[in-house]
């Protein structure tokens, strides 16, 4: 049995990040992933430190830039299980452009977003998902911007696996994580994560009184229904796999990659270079 060790963290006691880390470990172990073939990728932020706290390969890059690094690592070596584990500011703010475009690319990576609806590491400014009217150290009279709905956006942009989960519901979260990791294309899970230090609005109690599991007979292949449920984000918040569809992955569509050994295992062929040179003679 493979074991994923954890290391000492720098998170505040009671933070929602702890259970996400624990669920991730359990999910990987239950999926019998070999730690040496797992690559954890983060950007910058509190959530983005998760890759450092788990015994696997880790790449902590720049704020907002975890997706491009992660997809390219997967392009280079398909054998790696690549998981991006990072915050909502990182994923939807600084990294918003990459978020949209990597949905289009559909490289087979998993994206866990610790959505605490606030910037934690920089001490509590509004994030793209902060509720309208919420007062922060910068949004001193209350945030006036419409919060982004990441799951709705992901479905609209064409993502093949879109889920929402809650860090306070660990059994459910672990299950969703396992499904996301085994999904062949790009899978996004927006995880509601209470920041006990800076977000006094979206607390454990706030989420607990609102979240409910999508029904047993919910049809996750119905896009319109999925969008409707994705928009449900007030008194009641559905959690589970909102939308799922089988789509061709980047590796299947790219003819250099399709059905071949990983790029990193291929040797350069000098006869090809000679041929290419001849075209200029």
């Amino acid at each position, binding site marked *: 049995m493979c074991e994923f060790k954890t*290391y000492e963290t*720098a998170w505040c006691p009671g933070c929602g990040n702890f259970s996400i880390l624990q669920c991730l470990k359990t999910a990987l172990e239950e999926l019998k992933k070999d*730690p*040496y*073939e797992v*690559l954890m*990728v983060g950007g*910058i932020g509190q959530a983005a*430190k998760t*890759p*450092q706290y788990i*015994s*696997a*390969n*880790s*790449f*902590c*890059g*720049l704020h907002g*830039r975890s*997706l*491009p*690094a*992660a*997809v*390219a*690592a*997967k*392009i*280079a*070596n398909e*054998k*790696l299980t690549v998981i991006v584990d990072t915050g909502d500011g990182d994923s939807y703010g600084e990294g918003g*452009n*990459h978020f*949209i*475009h990597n949905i289009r690319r559909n490289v087979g990576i998993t994206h866990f977003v610790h959505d605490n609806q606030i910037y934690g590491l920089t001490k509590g400014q509004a994030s793209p998902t902060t509720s309208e009217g919420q007062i922060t150290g910068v949004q001193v009279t209350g945030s006036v911007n419409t919060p982004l709905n990441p799951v709705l956006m992901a479905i609209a942009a064409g993502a093949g696996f879109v889920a929402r989960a809650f860090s306070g519901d660990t059994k459910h979260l672990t299950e969703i994580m396992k499904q996301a990791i085994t999904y062949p294309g790009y899978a996004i899970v927006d995880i509601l994560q209470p920041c006990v230090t800076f977000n006094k609005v979206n607390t454990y109690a706030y989420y607990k009184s609102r979240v409910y599991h999508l029904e047993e007979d919910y049809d996750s292949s119905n896009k319109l229904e999925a969008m409707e449920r994705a928009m449900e984000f007030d008194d009641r918040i559905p959690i589970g796999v909102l939308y799922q569809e089988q789509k061709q992955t980047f590796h299947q569509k*790219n*003819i*250099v*990659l399709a059905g071949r050994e990983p*790029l*990193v295992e*291929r040797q*350069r*062929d*000098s006869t*090809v*270079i*000679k*041929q*290419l*040179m001849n075209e*200029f*003679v």
Partner: protein
Amino acid sequence: MYNILVGGAAGQGIDTTVANLEVLLKKAGYYVFTIKDFMSRVRGGHNFSLIRFGNEIITSHSNELDGMIALDDDTVELHKQNLKQDGFILCDTKLTTTDPKAIKLNMGGMAKELGNVRVSGSIAIGVILKLFGIATDHVEETMKNLVKEAYLDMNVKAVRLGYESVETRFSITPGNFSDWMIISGSKSLALGAIAAGIKFYSAYPMSPSTAIMEYLASKSVEADFVVEQAEDEIAAINMAIGASYAGARAMTGTSGGGFCLKVEALGLSGIAEIPLVAVNVQRPGPATGLPTRTEQSDLKFVISAAQGEFPRMVIALRNHKDAFYQTIRAFDITEKYQIPVIILSDQYLGDSTATVEPFDISNIKIANPSNDEYKEGEYLRYQLTENGISPRLIPGKSRNFVSVDSDEHDERGFITESADVRNQMMDKRMKKLELLREELLEPEFFGEENCETLFLGWGSTYGPIAEAVSILNEDEPGKYGALSFGDVYPLPTKLLMEKASKAKQIVNIEQNATGQLKDLIREQTGILCTGSILKYDGRQISGEEIVEKIRKGGQK
């Protein structure tokens, strides 16, 4: 040596005519050197190419014309003052010019009769071959590779028709260049990357760097690597870093403004010690500047781009041959030292084509990216070593974890704020510079050993300076010499100190407004230039222009 201009509006087929003509000239044995001057628009405007050919190596363009193919009246008006006494203007009868130098032919009509107006370019090519007395026995064979089979016959006929329409005016014996290659700087760079075993290239389109991406994309299936058009330059460089971390040789390319966006990730490559080759095909700035024109004004920017301090190397490409071999070297150095290597090219070099000896790939060794044997024990990605280089493993290839971080980190790759570890890690990274210094290539010297006047240049002014030095030395034997830098950062100083100590005058020749190399040299060596020739109008300086400036005492 002869020099002809092909000019017209964008979309009139200048590129095809020029591409075909240069191959035909080269196949006939001539050395060919072509530059492109075009506007940032898809249709209309005024674009031209200068094709210079002869029986010896040519390193610079020239603005003095032996003739021109004018596709519109503007071309005649704009360039006729550059025609030599016996120069000609080849154009269609539909042009209004009454210039006595004009050779007016009903090329449009002739082409229509052959079945397609587009073959008028081939008629013009036939005319040129005849005017310069160039034999046509190779035309059919060569055209096979240049035009689609269905149009081959028509084009060969068109060349012959043009050939029969005029009398020979000039003559020049061909050289021995028919077996050499004719290639643009950007394609040569791309070919170098392929020879170096590139596995991943990511970029966002930006003139004039796009030619690299286009060429690589066109060969990616054949040569087995992935080219990805990123959503922006930031993604492009972070992708290249991600791929490189995972063990694929990776490169990213752009031009000035795109490089600005990549700067933070350049530092990521620096602190995370992930190999990366980053190309900047310079164009005039700031901001969007002159998109399709040339300049060398990013030197100071790229040597200091990104916050903080970390070792890096900057290689400026001097010519088409360099573009190939130095790109391979860039991959080797980035792999060996785990530092970012920046290649500086520019529009002049990237878009110009030159005749080069087929590249020798027999000695290229592709270093194994990872130390695969390292298997036992806890692996330390950032192990403190004597020379600063830590053993690099590829994730997933052994049972060790490979942990990298953009934050300051300990030997394992985990975040730290310890003052001691910070010092150790900074020292470890900076130590690599000492080793790197031993690898530097001294600038290339040409001209007279004990010259009175020493020119200093870098990158693509290599060719024009070389031509200027040889013209000037013919007039005033023994007076001129030049050093052209390829490795610019770290700056090799040995030969510079030696030559500078003997020269009476030191003149830097650069395509920028401030003399960036001059400043760098002063900063690093204390050597002062006594004069400068600077050009920053977006057009490359030619050998002849340098000569003229020197004769007039035009250096500032």
